[in-house]
């Protein structure tokens, strides 16, 4: 059957043009807000055009008009059929003190798993160094960690002046950017069914374990604590949280015991992943500053007791923040 194309075009052409003008405006001016009447008209035009598309697809063999109407319908569809809740206006403090810790606790099992994998790596690295000192060259990729801990401590403690004067800020940004890249990579590797995340967490644990045991066996436990704790107390949990995000992603991908579709599972966790990654980013900015401005100075410039106490205070605050922040709101909501 062939429709009366002349009448059809004459009747509908103006509506198509009007819809195209609105779509061009929406696309070229993303901040443009429509009034209620304009929204109604937009919806009406979309319905009319999509009905025209259905007519022309059924009754005619006119491909150019079909493609034109299809393009208009596709462009309008995304704007009309947005059924999900609009994102809230951003409240940074509320997000940081409520949403972030709540999200962390919501996926606490993934965090414990992340911690366990790192711990296994830590034990492995420690054992490797304890039983085979030659393993240091393979396990520790950083040249400055391959020497004798006692010699390093002796050399560090000889320094009385500000040896990193003039490069502190550059150092801080390097630590921040490098660690953030590593953390994003740990999270993103969750897409490999979690295998990539597990390997990275394990390897991170191996390095930590090897360094720790190397210094402990050399009798430099105090130096080790003073060196690592000011920044490590935040940096290591940040990587663990990135691992948590990676494992949450992997869990959604695998979908054990869940009846929802893969698409739905990804939708459910997407906001949580973003929250965890942004939280990790903030933690690493703090850790970067501390590493450049405090961790790299040793006795007699900064007393070890001060650095260790600083680390302990950070740890207490971090545990309190992640375990208790935002709990009151949750109780009220419940």
């Amino acid at each position, binding site marked *: 059957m*062939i429709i009366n194309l002349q009448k059809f075009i004459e009747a509908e052409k103006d509506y198509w043009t009007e819809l195209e003008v609105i779509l061009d405006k929406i696309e070229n001016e993303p901040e443009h807000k429509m009034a209620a009447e304009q929204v109604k008209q937009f919806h009406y035009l979309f319905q009319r055009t999509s009905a025209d598309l259905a007519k022309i697809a059924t009754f005619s063999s006119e491909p150019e008009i079909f493609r034109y109407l299809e393009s208009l319908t596709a462009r309008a569809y995304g704007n009309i059929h947005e059924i999900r809740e609009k994102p809230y206006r951003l409240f940074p403090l509320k997000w940081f003190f409520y949403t972030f810790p709540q999200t962390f606790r919501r996926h606490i099992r993934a965090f414990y798993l992340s911690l366990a994998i790192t711990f296994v790596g830590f034990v492995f690295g420690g054992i490797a160094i304890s039983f085979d000192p030659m393993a240091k060259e393979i396990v520790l990729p950083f040249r400055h960690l391959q020497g004798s801990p006692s010699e390093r401590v002796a050399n560090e403690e000889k320094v009385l002046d500000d040896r990193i004067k003039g490069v502190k800020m550059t150092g801080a940004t390097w630590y921040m950017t490098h660690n953030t890249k590593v953390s994003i990579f740990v999270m993103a590797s969750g897409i490999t069914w979690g295998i990539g995340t597990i390997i990275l967490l394990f390897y991170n644990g191996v390095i930590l374990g090897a360094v720790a045991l190397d210094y402990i066996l050399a009798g430099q436990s105090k130096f080790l604590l003073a060196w690592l704790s000011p920044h490590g107390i935040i940096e290591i949990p940040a990587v663990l949280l990135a691992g948590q995000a990676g494992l949450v992603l992997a869990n959604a991908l695998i979908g054990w015991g869940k009846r929802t579709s893969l698409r739905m599972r990804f939708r459910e966790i997407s906001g949580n992943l973003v929250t965890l990654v942004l939280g990790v980013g903030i933690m690493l900015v703090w850790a970067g500053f501390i590493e450049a401005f405090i961790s790299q100075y040793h006795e007699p410039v900064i007393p070890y007791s001060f650095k260790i106490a600083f680390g302990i205070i950070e740890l207490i605050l971090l545990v309190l923040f992640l375990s208790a922040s935002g709990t009151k709101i949750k109780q009220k909501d419940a």
Partner: protein
Amino acid sequence: MHEEKTNTLLIKTPEGIIFSMLLAGPLTRFLAWGIDLACIFVVSSILGILLGIFGLISLDFSRALTVLAYFFISISYSIVTEWYWRGQTIGKRLLRLRVMDVQGLRLQFSQIMIRNLMRFVDSLPAFYFIGGAACLISKRAQRLGDFAANTIVIRNPKIVEPALNQLLAGKYNSLREYPHLCARLRQNVTPKEAGIALQSLLRRNELEPLARVELFEKITSHFRSIVEFPDEATYGITDEQYIRNLVDILFNS
């Protein structure tokens, strides 16, 4: 049932209307990424020069700001532009690509964040090898980031309004003097044949003069074999005019 890989994505609206979207292939996307990379380089370079001014106060501070600015721009460029331009970066705008929700819905910020953070894996080992391979394998041409974020990248070629006025003729049609033959014509011509006649008219200006004459001659001879109008109805009109009259009968009844 196994679904074959196609270059279109079919969407069915709640009203029951089905429409398709053209999926962007890995090569087009790679080109868009190349343009974006150039943009990042230009912006970072300009910012680097501007931040160099801080070197007068402290060289350390200036260097730190430059490193931080490059890192921030390289990570946030796609996130910010795709969020502001609803799924488009500069490269995507130039090549008429757009990131969309896999169901054709509006993009959420979390989707944009995830698909861009996943670039760290997609770009491995170099030049988006993993992402490109995933794109080739995936039936919706998705890289891993798109897969995790429930997004697709579509190509939105500029489709201009067809020259509809050409169809709205209104001139004298000698064939209409024979209504019984017109009715037979409408009865015997298939929609496909009618479409060929219409398209030949709409696209006639794209043809070389000789090819245009030959094409209309062939089409006319085909339609004459379906319904033969008397000589007095077709006397003095060209093959192209003959087809114009036929289209008028077929589509404007």
